[in-house]
């Protein structure tokens, strides 16, 4: 037996007619056969045989057709087999009794078989409903997003009820706003038409929203109502579960960001206090008069104060940039930029690194201009050079190369610093990662993640690589904005 995809509709008189016709035909054929075989039959045998169409009609087409068959069989029995033949009159009392018994038996069979058949149909219907619900709960369970859940509920309800339109609505979704989903997406009915049926989406604690149906045939059967209620409560439970899951994810994110914040705070307070402590010590010693006016100690202390103040300034700049990158508030002011300009400005700023390390620059004369924010790219150079200076032994060179490649530039900064384990190469660009020699190196652990943020905001990539005799950073930059190209001009 195949299951209908829709709930059984109330049959109209047209759809009801064929079973009566079949029953009528079946009975007529049986009567004809019996009339032909009359010479070999007695009336009681004919009566028994005439119960066949009655019981089979009941089994096949239900109560109504079987009663029709019973009445026909009763008339045929009287007409063809009870004397006087070919009349509907009965002379003998026992014949009348036999006819009445026949009618009673026929009616009883119709009743019993019909009821059995109806309960079978009901059982099948129930099984069908529970299958649908099972399927629905399975499908809903796979959906985590409120919109998807509402969409599935609307689609499924529309499909099963053949409604013209189904809307599902939660009054307050996880972002606090109402969320409405409709199948089909465009209203076929006038905007202000009242829905033909509204079913609440009732959660365990409060009303989540509702489901609205519009259907040309306005009335909904009891079965449909029952199913729709079940759909609605299933969907409500799923919605609640999705919400709880989201809240716990959010809680996890918050926890993670709290963890980052406290890492930042501890790192920052340490990094802020170190230069402050140095400055305070140097200043108090200078002002207390313990250091002679004209001495090496005095100029050393002054140099320390100067350097530490610069360090503080860099730190604050990095924190600011980081928070801008994190907030997505980095606004690129792109213009045609010579990489050599950014690099030169960065070198002027990273004087500690360039004092301790010879800087070797190899930029081809015909290097194309880059379409970048020069202030930010200078920051990238500055951070990479400062990082290289911190991690490589003093006196070893820092090399900077650039080459045009495809539609852009690849810039490389090489130092003689220690290797980073291969699996950690990507992680050095994460915040607060210090994978080597942490005790020796000062800094917030923000420099490289700022580089990553800036390069990626430009649509480029940044990566690190262990070299046989050192360590390299590479990053790519675009040399082609959407339409314009730098103009090649000569004076």
């Amino acid at each position: 037996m195949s299951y209908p995809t829709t709930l059984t509709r109330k049959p109209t008189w047209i759809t009801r007619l064929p079973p009566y016709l079949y029953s009528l035909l079946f009975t007529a054929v049986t009567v004809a056969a019996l009339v032909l075989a009359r010479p070999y039959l007695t009336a009681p045998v004919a009566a028994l045989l005439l119960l066949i169409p009655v019981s089979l009609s009941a089994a096949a087409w239900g109560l109504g057709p079987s009663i029709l068959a019973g009445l026909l069989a009763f008339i045929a029995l009287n007409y063809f087999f009870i004397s006087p033949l070919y009349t509907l009159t009965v002379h003998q009392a026992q014949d009348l009794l036999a006819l009445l018994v026949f009618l009673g038996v026929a009616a009883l069979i119709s009743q019993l078989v019909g009821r059995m058949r109806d309960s079978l149909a009901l059982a099948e219907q129930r099984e069908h409903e529970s299958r649908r619900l099972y399927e629905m709960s399975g499908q809903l369970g796979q959906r985590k997003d409120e919109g998807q859940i509402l969409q599935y509920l609307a689609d499924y309800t529309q499909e099963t009820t053949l409604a013209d339109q189904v809307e599902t609505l939660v009054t307050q979704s996880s972002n606090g706003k109402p969320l409405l989903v409709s199948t089909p997406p465009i209203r076929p009915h006038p905007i202000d038409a009242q829905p033909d049926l509204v079913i609440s989406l009732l959660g365990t604690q409060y009303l989540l929203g509702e489901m609205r149906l519009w259907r040309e045939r306005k009335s909904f059967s009891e079965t449909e109502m029952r199913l729709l209620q079940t759909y609605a409560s299933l969907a409500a439970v799923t919605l609640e579960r999705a919400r709880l899951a989201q809240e716990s994810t959010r809680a996890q994110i918050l926890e993670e960001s709290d963890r980052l914040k406290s890492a930042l705070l501890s790192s920052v307070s340490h990094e802020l206090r170190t230069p402050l402590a140095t400055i305070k010590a140097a200043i108090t010693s200078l002002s207390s008069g313990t250091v002679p006016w004209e001495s090496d100690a005095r100029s050393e202390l002054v140099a320390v104060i100067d350097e530490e103040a610069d360090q503080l300034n860099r730190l604050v700049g990095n924190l600011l940039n980081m928070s801008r990158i994190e907030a997505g508030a980095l606004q690129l002011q792109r213009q045609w930029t010579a990489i050599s300009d950014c690099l030169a400005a960065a070198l002027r700023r990273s004087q500690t690194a360039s004092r301790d390390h010879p800087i070797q620059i190899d930029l081809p004369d015909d290097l194309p201009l880059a379409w970048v924010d020069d202030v930010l790219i200078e920051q990238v150079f500055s951070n990479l050079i400062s990082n290289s200076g911190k991690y490589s032994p003093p006196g070893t060179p820092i090399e900077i190369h650039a080459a045009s490649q495809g539609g852009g530039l690849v810039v490389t900064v090489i130092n003689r610093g220690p290797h980073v384990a291969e699996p950690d190469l990507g992680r050095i660009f994460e915040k607060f990662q210090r994978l080597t020699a942490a005790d020796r190196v000062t800094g917030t652990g923000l420099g490289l993640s700022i580089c990553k943020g800036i390069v990626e905001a430009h649509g480029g990539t940044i990566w690190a690589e262990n070299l046989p005799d050192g360590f390299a950073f590479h990053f790519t930059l675009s040399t082609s904005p959407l339409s314009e190209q730098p103009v090649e001009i000569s004076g």
Partner: protein
Amino acid sequence: MTRQMHILVIDDEPQILRALRTILTAKGFRISTASRGEEGLALAAVEEPDLIILDLSLPDIDGFQVCRELRQWTRTPIIVLSVRESERDKVTALDLGADDYLTKPFGIEELLARIRVAMRHAGGAAHASASSVIQAGPFRIDITAHQVMRGDEEIKLTATEYNLLVYLASNAGRVLTHRAILEQVWGPADIDHVEYLRVYIRQLRQKIEKDPNQPRYLVNEPGIGYRFIPEG
């Protein structure tokens, strides 16, 4: 110094005012201070200082407005103070007529150098603008002969390179915005073509710098413009 130079400092940070007053007074300047924009404008009108140091973030009216109003009636040099993260603000202030800028925190030597350059240009504008020879560091530019010399050696420049160098060198020590340079050397129609400037700066550096990748004379100020440093 025949007359004591008078500097007006407009900044809302009391500690900055206190430090600048102390340091600049010790350096022989006469100092007035204002902690609000309106007050600064009034003082500028009454006291007619020789130079104004102006912080861009003020509590009442912003530094741009102060700059704009000052430029309506005076050519007194203005040095703008600002924090590092606001390059566009500095460009705006420079385009509004400020003479130079300084990023907080700054060294006092840097401030004194900016003051000297601004004073010199203010004096230069009044007196010797018609000079036919510009001496900038080791370079000697003869305007009438269209000739650039480093010591006894002549540097051959194209017309555009020459115009660029003349403009930068005659403003030696002072920052010039991309826009100002483009307007002066290429004309008002080309003020957005930074790429011209980049290309010519590179060509010029190859002719006058020892190491074009680490320039000493033609210095880039990211996001702002270029500065010619005669001392190299």
